[in-house]
Structure formats: structure tokens, C-alpha cells
């Protein structure tokens, strides 16, 4: 068993003066509440972890998912959510049959300012999920100040008004502190392929459980990833 450490550098670390030309990576997380879209593969729960790591703790969460997502990706599990700083007692789970109901529930939930976050999960490419709906969600999230995450499984990256659009896959986990054969802390490859107010890019993200913090490091190792974030479009 060998563990390869990628040449990574923390975004927050100051760059040394005499070093090579720094790869400037703007902090990829939004400072204010907005709509983020996270694309995930069907049996890859990296998107769930990535989303939960961004949810501010201590406030209720409304989590809406359609039936297919619940069946295929599983139901949010209270004891496991504690590992991401989510109090399951303050979770309201909505399982809707149709994607239209998921989107409607998310819109209603975004009217509630006491929420910590609204998370929606939609499987596939339903007709109800079009640009107009995402635009409404984005505006409502910004108006109410509640971060909104739309997790999409088995979906193509069609037109959307989400302020940030991510693609998240899992990476081999960090080494376990006591057992080299056991899975350790999760790590994800996160690709911000479209953003409204920042430069797209690819990062390697890990979750700091004690501090409830996402740590990003620039993923420079993979040349395929490096050239991917070429397009950036700003929606009026």
C-alpha cells in the first residue's frame, strides 16, 4: 500500500517572495448566500459531503430530494450527518415525488430566513428544472440570505442561473492516523466550471471536522483539469 502525496499548496498560505510565479487562486467559496449547483455521479457522495461542509452550523436545514435521489443515493442519515456538524434534530427532510415539487419546496423554504441552508437534490434531467427556475432560486437565495445548494445526479450541465457551478468527485481519502488500511478523512476533487464573480478552477478539497471548515488546495497535478476551466460566462 503506498500513499502518493500530491504536490499541493494551501490557498490561504502566503506565497514566498522568491518562489516561482504563484498560481493565484481566489477563494472559491461565496462570501454571501447564493445558489450553488453541484454535479455528482450517481454512486459518489462527495457532493453531499462538500455541500454539508459549507452549511453554517447551528441552524435548521431544509433538505429536499426527489424519490429517485432518495432511492439511488440513499436517505440522509442522522448519525452520519453529525460528522459534518449537522444536528439531525434541526433537519427537515422533504421527499417529493416530482422534481417540480422539489423546486417548489426549495422556493418556499428560501422564504424562511432562520434556515442555515436549503439543499435540493434532483435526479436526471427533468423538464421542470429550467433556467427560469434556477434564476428564481438564485434571486430568492440572495434576497433571504440563505445559502441554497442544488445537487444534481446523472445530469448534464445545461443552462442554469446558479452563481457557482461545481463538479465534485471523490478522491482517495487521506491516510488514516492509526490504520494504514482503513479509509481516512474524505477528500474531493472539486471543479468550479462556471462562476459569476470569481475565476473558475479546480481544487482539491478536504473537510476539517473540528473547525467545520473546507480546506482547498490547488490541484496542479492533473493537466487535464488545469485546462478545463476555460469558459466563464457572466449572467446579467
Amino acid at each position, binding site marked *: 500500500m503506498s500513499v502518493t502525496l500530491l504536490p499541493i499548496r494551501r490557498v490561504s498560505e502566503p506565497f514566498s517572495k522568491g518562489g516561482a510565479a504563484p498560481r493565484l487562486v481566489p477563494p472559491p467559496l461565496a462570501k454571501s448566500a447564493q445558489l450553488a449547483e453541484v454535479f455528482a455521479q450517481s454512486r459518489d457522495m462527495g457532493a453531499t459531503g462538500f455541500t454539508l461542509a459549507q452549511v453554517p452550523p447551528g441552524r435548521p436545514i431544509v433538505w429536499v430530494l426527489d424519490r429517485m435521489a432518495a432511492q439511488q443515493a440513499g436517505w440522509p442519515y442522522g448519525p452520519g450527518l453529525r460528522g459534518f456538524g449537522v444536528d439531525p434534530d434541526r433537519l427537515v427532510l422533504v421527499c417529493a415525488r416530482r422534481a417540480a415539487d422539489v423546486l417548489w419546496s426549495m422556493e418556499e423554504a428560501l422564504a424562511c430566513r432562520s434556515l442555515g441552508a436549503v439543499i435540493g437534490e434532483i435526479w436526471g434531467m427533468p423538464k421542470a428544472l429550467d433556467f427560469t427556475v434556477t434564476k428564481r432560486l438564485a434571486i430568492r437565495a440572495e434576497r433571504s440570505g440563505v445559502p441554497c445548494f442544488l445537487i444534481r445526479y446523472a445530469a448534464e450541465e445545461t443552462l442554469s442561473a446558479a452563481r457557482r457551478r461545481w463538479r465534485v468527485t471523490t478522491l482517495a481519502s487521506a491516510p488514516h492516523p492509526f490504520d494504514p488500511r482503513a479509509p481516512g478523512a*474524505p477528500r474531493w476533487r472539486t471543479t468550479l466550471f462556471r462562476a459569476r464573480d470569481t475565476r473558475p478552477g479546480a481544487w482539491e478539497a478536504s473537510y476539517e471536522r473540528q473547525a467545520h471548515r473546507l480546506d482547498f488546495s490547488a490541484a496542479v497535478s492533473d493537466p487535464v483539469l488545469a485546462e478545463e476551466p476555460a469558459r466563464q460566462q457572466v449572467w446579467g
Partner: protein
Amino acid sequence: MLLRDGRHGPVIHDLTPAAARHGLAGGMGISDARTLLPSVQVEPATLEADQAELVRLARWALRWCPWTRADGADGLLLDTTGSDHLWGGEAAMLAAMVSAFARIGLSVRAAAAPTLGAAWALARYGAVSPVICAPDALSQTLADLPVVALRLDEETVSLLHRLGLKTVDALQAVSRTALVRRFRERAPDEANPARRLDQTLGRVAEPLMPEMPPPAPRALRQLVEPIVDVDSVSQVLAELLKDLTAEMERRGQGARRLRLTGYRVDGGTASVETAAARANRDPDHLARLFRDRLEGLDAGFGFEVMTLDALVLEEMEALQWDLSGGDSGDLDLTRLIDRLTARLGRDAVLRPVETASHIPERASRFRPADLEAGEVPRPKGPAKPRPVRLLRPPEAADVLYAVPDGPPARLVWRRQTHRVVRSEGPERIAPEWWRERSTTRLRDYYRVEDAEGRRYWIYREGLPGDGRGGAPRWFVHGLDA
């Protein structure tokens, strides 16, 4: 001895028979009482608590008949018309009442009479107790009682005494014309002996008004034209809600469950119900709960009358949502749950509830979010690693081992093969034998990670040769981030 505040300091409110034998009497001043009996024990009377207790007893007395009420400070009135035969006649019923009150430590004087006034008089001033007065003996039975037994106030009683009329008999002897003319100015019944006499002897009806909780509020609209379409119905609903919420506000209550009923022109009704997680009387919010259900109302040829009933009411404090008194556009979480439940149904809006169990799917279950969450004891001990998502139910999978009974090497799930790179386990969870059948097998849980870093929570059900079935089977139970 109990005391209450009189006009000139504390006076005796009530006293024990032992104290009465020493010459004390109700209404006597405390200093006079102490002079007569220096060793007397004094307690303040709790008039309000007594009254509340009496109302409670009146409700308790509903076991004998459907109409009961508390009377004054020390009496209960029961209209047993039509219910005495259920107890085997009036005598048996009175005996049952006396013994029932004796069991809860109260001595009662009971009387059954054809009129309310006669029963009142016999219970308080009759020579014996319990006593039953037959309808034809009413006049004779009451003849010897003092005039105060006619439920007259003090002033009237003293007036009658001055006139030399001390008993009911004497009052009856006076010609009715004279009596009516003498007291015709006196409006309230307790100041008018002629009227009281009529009531007591049954010449004037005096129904007993039971003390019942007020009926649930209801709003009603008679419509000029029968309405069919949803828009008109929602307009009527808005008006009904305005009426109903005004009534609920007056009572300080809010509704948890409402029913809208339409009465159709062609005979028949259609109704739709909705429920709120918390008592509510905001017309806009309640209208929203109904909004998606109005299509379900079958109007037929149209509704001509619509009613709105509050089915479940709860006490509710007047709440002000923000300082300006207006709606800030913010939405309370419970209201959000109401709205979601109203549209998607109770089975769709859920809250995880933890149970004291080690079986993963039992440890955290879902309940409708509009139910109040109760405190559940959690299993003690350090938190075990658990996945963020759980498949309900677990899905069967195939697992290959590198070495017999070693860690899983390959996982085949949903027709795809995953090479297991890292694994941790087993964590053994034994079946809950007190809850499950004896053939339930134990589970060995493994956390595994495949070559792409995806993480699964899988378990093997049973052990080879545990005598509870064939070869152990594998399941994928959770997915981890």
C-alpha cells in the same frame, strides 16, 4: 373554622360541626368567636379555589345526567329528567350520588323534586336528606319551609319577615293578586317572591342551563348565486377565514385543523380539511394551506352555502411577529412545514427521530415533521463512524475476499464491480433478540473505499455455520461522503 373578609374585618365563612356546638355561627366576627372559644383553629377561606372545585364537580356529575351546573357557592344542580331510570329510579340514583360523594370525602344534602326551586329548597332547608318530592306533594312538602328557601335575597326576606310572612305556607295564603301587585316593581327573580313561588311550584318553567364549553367556532356564508369555480371558492374562503380568525382572536385561540364544507345545490356536501403544525389564526397562512386542495372540492352544480369549522383548537397567545407589526416577508419554520405538508402530504415532510437502538435503520427513523419532537434517549458510548446516507432498505451485493473471512477485496453492487482499496472493520451489530425473531442474523459492518475514493458501508449478514440460514449474504447499507 374558615375565615373570609367581612365588612368590619374578618368573619367566619364556615365552620366544623364541633365549633358550631360551642355557639359559633357563620357571619360572626373573629374576635367574638375567639371570646366564645379561645382554642378555635382558624384558616383563611379560598373562595375562588372553592368555586373552581365546584365547577369541576359539576363536570364530574355529568356521569349521572347530561345537564349539570354549579349553583352559587355550594350547590350543584342536575336535571335528571329522563336519566333517573338508568340508575333504577330516583331513590336509587340519589343513594348512588350520596355514596359517590362520600367516597371522595364530601358530605352532601341531596333532594330530588319536580322543579329546580323545590329541589334547591329541600336540599338546603329540608328536614331530611336525601329526600324525594313527588309532583303532587310539592305544595305540602314546601309548606313548612322558611321563605328564604325560595331563593330570595336578604333584603326581600327581611321585608317578608316584617310583613309577618315567615314560611312558604304563609306566603301561599296571601292572595296572589296582592302579592303580584306588591312586588311588581321588583325585576330580578331573587327579589320577587311571587315569581319565585311560581317557579318553585312549577307554574313557570325554569330550564336548567348547563355549563358547557362554548362550541367550536364556525363561520358561514349564504351565497346569492351558487358558485362552481375555484376562484370564487377561494374568495369565499378568504371571507370565512376573516370571520373565523376574528372569533378565534376574541377567544385567544388558534386552529390546528380546519374543515371547509360546501353545501351543494343538488343536495349533498363536499368538504376538505387542512392542518397546521402549530395553532394559528393568520388568515393568509391558513388560506395558503387550503390553496392546493380547493381543486379537490366537487362543486357539482354549485355551492349555495359554505361553512368553515375549526376542528381542533388550541390556546394561543397574541403574537406580534416584528416591531413594525407588519409582515417582514420572513417565514416561521413551523409555517413553512405547514405549507409543505399541505401540498405534499404528511408522509413527505419528515423529521429524523433517533431511537435507542444499535440497528442502524432503527436508530434514526423519520416521522411527519408536524408532530412535536419528543426526547429520546440515545445509546451511550462514543460515536461510531456512520455514513451520511443510508439506503432504505439495504441493497444486496456480492463481495469477494482476498483471503477467506478476510477484508472484502471486490464489491459488485448494482451490476458494477468496484475494487476495494481500503477497508475498516468489522463492526459487529448483534440482532435485538427482544424485538426480533430468533432467526435474525448478526451483521458485520465494514467501511470500504474503492479505487476511485467512493466509500460504502457494507455488511455481511450472519456467519457461516451459525445455524440461521445458508451462506452469509452481503448488503450495501450506506454511502459515505
